[in-house]
């Protein structure tokens, strides 16, 4: 089968995507990339939708350095949600008004109410002048921000997750995704709570809480002591979680991620029930990563006789998704 003939289009809830690949929040900054790259990078944006770094109501300084390093087949990060706050975020967004792809705004917060506040601020800006911005198609609620006593996240608690989701749902009619944390005993109750509270779909997984030591001092390497593990190392756990949620909540669109470096990796998440997939750490291997993964996905579909990428969805599951 001719790879060029493979139909890569997918439907993420109400959203039509040209292909299943989006960037994972926090790993690709189109505003920065456009600023520093030759050619019209905004027009040439390789992903089917743009998920910027998580934005909070007010600016956040983030954690103390060092913030990143490599681990066996992965990396750890403790950026600590550094971001310029929603107002500056909207300024930046307006510089890529020419983007021909939808934007899914990743929203963070400490208090459960903060999420809805950010959503409202974006809705207000869009209401006042949508033509100043690219097409904001929806939101992804990053419920991995620590909140619960002991440093755990909102996303470990089905009830808190439902609260955050409900408030955001009330603030927007656009696509609403909730991004699940993998640091839980069972991801399904949280997934179910988010969907019952109004989420249109779910993204998973965020990073795994982890720790790296400085090899000479044996003290925690990261300024923040612990951080989030991502990359190929976690792929087998991420695949298991995506498959679990796909089986527990058939029909709910999922954005799968965790260690996607190649087209086969992307296809594996789709086989486990994902509608779309997000590329995180691979962005750090070079700007050509998304194209390479997309070309790989197309070739892998063709080699296996999938005329539509949606034909591969759920083939790894006990019953289709």
């Amino acid at each position, binding site marked *: 089968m001719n790879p060029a003939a493979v139909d890569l289009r997918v439907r993420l809830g109400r959203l039509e995507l040209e292909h299943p690949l989006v960037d994972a929040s926090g790993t690709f900054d189109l505003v920065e990339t456009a600023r*520093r790259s030759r050619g019209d990078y905004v027009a040439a944006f390789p992903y089917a939708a743009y998920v910027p770094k998580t934005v909070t109501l007010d600016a956040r300084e983030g954690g103390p350095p060092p913030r990143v390093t490599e681990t066996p087949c992965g990396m750890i990060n403790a950026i600590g949600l550094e971001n310029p706050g929603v107002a500056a975020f909207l300024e930046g967004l307006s510089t890529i008004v020419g983007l021909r792809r939808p934007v899914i705004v990743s929203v963070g917060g400490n208090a459960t109410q903060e999420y809805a506040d950010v959503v409202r601020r974006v809705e207000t800006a869009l209401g006042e002048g949508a033509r100043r911005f690219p097409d904001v198609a929806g939101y992804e609620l990053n419920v991995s921000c620590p909140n619960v006593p002991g440093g755990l996240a909102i996303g470990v608690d089905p009830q808190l997750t439902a609260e955050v989701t409900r408030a955001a749902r009330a603030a927007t009619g656009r696509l609403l995704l909730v991004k699940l944390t993998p640091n839980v005993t069972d991801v399904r109750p949280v997934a179910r709570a988010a969907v019952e509270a109004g989420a249109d779909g779910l993204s998973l997984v965020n990073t795994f809480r982890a720790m790296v030591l400085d090899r000479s001092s044996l003290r925690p390497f990261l300024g923040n002591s612990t951080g989030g593990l991502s990359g190929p190392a976690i792929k087998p756990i991420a695949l298991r979680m995506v498959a679990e949620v796909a089986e527990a909540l058939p029909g709910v669109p999922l954005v799968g991620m965790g260690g996607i470096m190649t087209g086969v990796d992307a296809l594996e998440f789709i086989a486990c029930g994902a509608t779309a997939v997000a590329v995180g750490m691979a962005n750090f291997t070079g700007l*050509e990563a998304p194209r390479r993964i997309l070309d790989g996905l197309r070739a892998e579909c063709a080699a296996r006789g999938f005329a539509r990428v949606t034909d591969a969805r759920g083939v790894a599951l006990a019953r289709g998704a």
Partner: protein
Amino acid sequence: MTAAARSPHPRRARPERGEQWAETSRCRVVAARRFGAFTALELLAPEIAAVAWPGQFVMVKVPGSGFLLRRPFSVFTARGDRLGLLIEARGPGSERLADAQVGEALDLAGPLGAGFPLEGVRTALLVGGGIGCAPLQMLTDALAGRGVPVMAAFGFRDGRQARVAAAFDIERLWVATEDGSVGRPGMVSDLLAALDAPPSATVFCCGPAAMIAAVQRWAAGAGLRGYASLEAHMACGVGACHGCVVATKRGALRVCSEGPVFALDEVVIP
């Protein structure tokens, strides 16, 4: 097909502090020379060499499946179509790169970062500690091209490290070693007092944090302005991930895109 092959671009004049390009290109190693603890690699990299600015760096993919993140290396030289890197083996990735063979192709992204500002520099005092001397050769070349006189002081741990001085082409170069085996015994900061830098001199320094702090104190005392090039662990190298921030008086700034060069007096060494 490499990105470079997709979008060939004309040679352009170097813009002030350098442009930052995230595109990757495969560059053949045309020479590899050992200088004690360091290896100087010469790569055929016409596109990067044509536009690189002193103080910029490249993100190098380490060959082999064991490495995921690229490693940052300063531009050591950019002469014609050749790009030079100076590599100290400090871990598995840099070790592998220091072992690169002539003929091997390396995948480079760059040039990246904001380099040393050269506008208005009348005399330059370059201060390098250990592998921190790497960006100072290209800086010397650029300053020489502008007719700016250059003095340089390099500090090394020992004689083995100091052998890298032979890789440099800087006329007025002083060396200090901690073990006293070569040049003046002691730290590079001890050298500074001995050099009588003119009050108009601009200081350019790169090296370990402790050295930068010492240079900062000395320059403040001597009333000299200057710049420091900093290191940080990086993921993206292009300002996207905020992984590489360092503390400055202007707040946490990204080494890869807002640096690696910062005003010497704004750097905050923890």
